[in-house]
């Protein structure tokens, strides 16, 4: 029996670039587990990324994000696209365990070789995604999937990390949540590229639609007059209704991004965000490693304040400009 999680990073990289599913799956496992082999793996695949359209699907719990994703995957497959799905569900903050159930709604695609579905737990990360989601998207991009769907956990007020990752973000709303929509409005309503009211056959659809229309109207009035209108679409994902219109809108958005040079700009913005996030992570653990217990004790006994303690730690960094 081969040891679990075995593999050599350059070999895994070569195989995943050839499109081998097991190799891609192993790469994502390493990324998720923060295996030291990731460094070699990522440097071997990074040059092959930057082609896939990353589509975020987000919205409150119970909005039907997984069912909607399942429906969109079918539509893309009908149009000959290869699709990967990263489905994020919450990990328990207490045990670290998780129940990842998004696949249940997408089971019909599990034996289609043109579809790769991967479930990830948030593993302590706030913001609606796992820390590994960006890198998992890179793996799928390098494997040659045309579309990478990133389905977030059910979001509340400002879990909008997906906006920094996705080229196109779909906000899924449902009738009957009323106040929930007000809540989502805060961060996400400003960010979405396509809005979908799912479960549109339910009572309250008209009211929800009107509410969204109003929000989008207010948002549009703050933009230049030639900015493309943000689509507001209806869907009944459980019955497969609305798929063609949503996939059309996603394709149109991709074209708009390309024409404006925005696709490349988004890619570079995302790369920059990722570098900074990794620096934050690394810096934090390095600083924690450097802080003598006396620093925390001094704060604890009110000898120095938290800001002064942080400044003292940061002062230990060498100041020098760094080039690639």
């Amino acid at each position: 029996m081969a040891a679990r999680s075995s593999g050599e990073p350059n070999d895994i990289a070569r195989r995943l670039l050839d499109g081998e599913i097991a190799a891609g799956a192993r790469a994502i496992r390493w990324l998720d587990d923060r295996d030291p082999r990731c460094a070699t793996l990522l440097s071997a695949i990074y040059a092959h990324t930057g082609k896939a359209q990353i589509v975020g699907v987000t919205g409150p719990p119970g909005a039907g994000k997984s069912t909607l994703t399942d429906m969109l995957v079918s539509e893309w497959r009908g149009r000959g696209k290869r699709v990967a799905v990263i489905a994020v569900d919450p990990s328990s903050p207490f045990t670290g365990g998780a129940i990842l159930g998004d696949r249940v709604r997408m089971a019909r695609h599990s034996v289609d070789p043109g579809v790769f579905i991967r479930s990830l737990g948030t593993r302590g990360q706030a913001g609606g995604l796992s820390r590994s989601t960006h890198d998992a998207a890179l793996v799928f991009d390098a494997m040659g999937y045309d579309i990478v769907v990133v389905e977030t956990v059910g979001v509340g007020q400002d879990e909008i990390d997906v906006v920094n990752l996705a080229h196109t973000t779909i906000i899924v709303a449902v009738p009957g949540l009323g106040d929930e929509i007000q809540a989502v409005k805060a961060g996400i309503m400003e960010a979405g590229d396509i809005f979908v009211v799912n479960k549109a056959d339910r009572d309250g659809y008209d009211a929800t639609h009107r509410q969204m229309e109003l929000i989008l109207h207010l948002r549009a009035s703050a933009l230049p007059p030639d900015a493309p209108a943000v689509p507001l679409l209806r869907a009944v994902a459980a019955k497969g209704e609305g798929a063609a219109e949503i996939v059309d809108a996603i394709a149109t958005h991709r074209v708009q991004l390309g024409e404006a040079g925005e696709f490349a700009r988004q890619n570079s913005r995302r790369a920059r965000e990722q570098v900074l996030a990794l620096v934050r992570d690394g810096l934090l653990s390095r600083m924690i490693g450097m802080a003598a217990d006396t620093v925390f004790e001094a704060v604890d006994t009110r000898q120095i304040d938290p800001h002064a303690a942080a400044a003292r730690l940061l002062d230990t960094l060498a100041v020098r400009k760094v080039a690639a």
Partner: protein
Amino acid sequence: MATSYQRPLRVLLAKLGMDTHTVGVTIIGHALREAGMEVIFTGLKQTPEMVCSAAIQEDVDVVGISTLSAGHTRSLPKLARLLREAGAEDKLLVAGGVIPEEDKPVLEAAGVDRIFTMGSDTRDIVAYLNAWWKEQQSEEAA
């Protein structure tokens, strides 16, 4: 990478065929989650092909099959064979539910690593999986 290396056990839980009894698999799922594992549900009415494909895509360590309405002497050996053929025999294959004594040797010979029958204590299942996982990791470190 600067930050810590963490490896929770990943477990796929599935039901094969027309069996729609979900209480057992749901309880097991929650027990494993409480024990800090990542549990991936595939849903009901799965074929061995679907489970094999999901297990590979998810790169799970353990595949757990719950069976309460027979058919297991056909579907479980088939799943074990598919996993072997896909080069995924490193995954632990565990079955639980209503499995008559006389079926056990058949399933074990076909590649099912461990069988938990009705009345098994979830703590024993967790302990068994943790022990296996520890063994795996020390093997890898060696």
